[in-house]
């Protein structure tokens, strides 16, 4: 197996506050690692470091042997990452061209169809409902078939249709060999799609390992064991 994500002894400080404390974590290619933890535990900080959006003070981070800035993982954060004053098609064309997908027009059209926005493709995003925005954000994140996906609480405030769509996209991405790290509070959904689980608490990694059948039956088990 190829090591896709490799963090060793990573420390991140905000002023004097240590948001991450000596975090060491590896994720193999094709795995889906659910990053669990309470609010403020350090999940978003860890994902932002992996995405190359935040620097860190100590330790090392590699994605397929490169620095996070060179690895270009697809990142879906708390914002949907699309422009309000562009249409759905213009947004996907823009991000498709940035990622140098082979045929941006065709790819954008296919993704608009797939996420059920083909009829609204020329509408401005500011006219979209919340559900439509979320589906467009999913299309934006997955359209260039990234090798690494970093998803920060992707299930939060998604409707049923979008949850199903996201779960399918994650499973499909894993099937083609993509590596996924997702932070979440939705334990049940996460346990179903994750192959591995990591628990982070007060910036420290408390647990990292395979997701077991026991966790699937009792999603809150890890929290109880490490609280």
């Amino acid at each position, binding site marked *: 197996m190829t090591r896709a994500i490799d963090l060793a002894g990573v420390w991140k400080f905000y002023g004097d506050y240590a948001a991450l404390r000596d975090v060491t974590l590896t994720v193999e290619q094709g795995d889906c690692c659910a990053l669990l933890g309470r609010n403020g535990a350090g999940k978003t900080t860890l994902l*932002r470091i992996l*995405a*190359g*959006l935040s*620097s860190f003070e100590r330790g090392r981070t590699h994605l397929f042997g490169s620095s996070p*800035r060179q690895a*270009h*993982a*697809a*990142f879906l*954060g*708390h*914002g*949907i*990452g*699309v*422009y*309000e*004053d*562009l249409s759905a098609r*213009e947004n996907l064309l*823009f*991000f498709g*061209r*940035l*990622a*140098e997908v082979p045929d941006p027009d065709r790819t954008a059209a296919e993704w608009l169809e797939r996420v059920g926005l083909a009829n609204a493709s020329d509408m*401005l995003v500011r006219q979209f409902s919340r559900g439509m925005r979320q589906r467009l954000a999913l299309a*934006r994140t997955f359209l260039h078939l990234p090798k690494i996906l*970093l998803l920060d609480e992707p299930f939060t405030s998604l409707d049923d249709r979008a949850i199903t769509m996201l779960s399918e996209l994650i499973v499909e991405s894993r099937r083609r060999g993509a590596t996924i790290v997702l932070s979440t509070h939705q334990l049940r959904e996460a346990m179903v799609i994750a192959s591995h689980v990591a628990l982070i608490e007060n910036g420290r990694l408390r647990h990292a390992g395979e997701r077991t059948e026991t966790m699937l039956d009792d999603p809150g088990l890890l929290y109880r064991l490490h609280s």
Partner: protein
Amino acid sequence: MKTVKHALLIARKDLAVELRTKESLNAAGAFSIVILLLFSFAFDPDPEQVKEIGGGLLWLVFAFAGALVFNRSFARELPNDCLDTLLASPLSPASLLTGKALANFVMLLAMELVSIVIFGIFFNVNWTRHIGELSLVFALGTWGISMLGAVFGALTVNLRLRELMLPIIIYPLLIPLLIAAIELTKLLLANQPPSPSDFLWAKILIVFDVVFTALAMMLADTILVN
């Protein structure tokens, strides 16, 4: 090559958004027209005075109106965390800064074109006699302002008082560029033949553009990520 391609994509996207919303162009255009009109009516300068003050008036208008454009440049990326999405994408920070500077450049040039026409009408100046040289001075001066605006627009984008901070930071840095552009514009509006010493101003403009563009490219990662 990739940097240029990505920079053009960013510029095209920014211009498409701006043409749709006209947030910056309306504000900068209105500001320029009002200042030029007020100056014309308040001082009613004779042709000789216009030759003396024309260059200064125009470049002060361009610089102040520019701040209105630069403030929106990176602020446009804040809703929906688009800046994070861009920085996590294959786009290099240098491409992002160059693309932003290019979009600023086009918007400022459009505003300058409107301003010079208004200036010509209300101050009764024939500015078309040296249109080639004047265009070159405008292009060189505007690129320097645009690049500096992009760099400091990026640095101040997350500040609560960015609208206030941006002009405070960039105007002192723009002084050499503005002096050179003002001197050259004054010369061209007055229809005077340039003396060898006047070429010094052109050299200052070119050096300013080259130095700040190179610095921006080298420090892009630090400016945008760290």
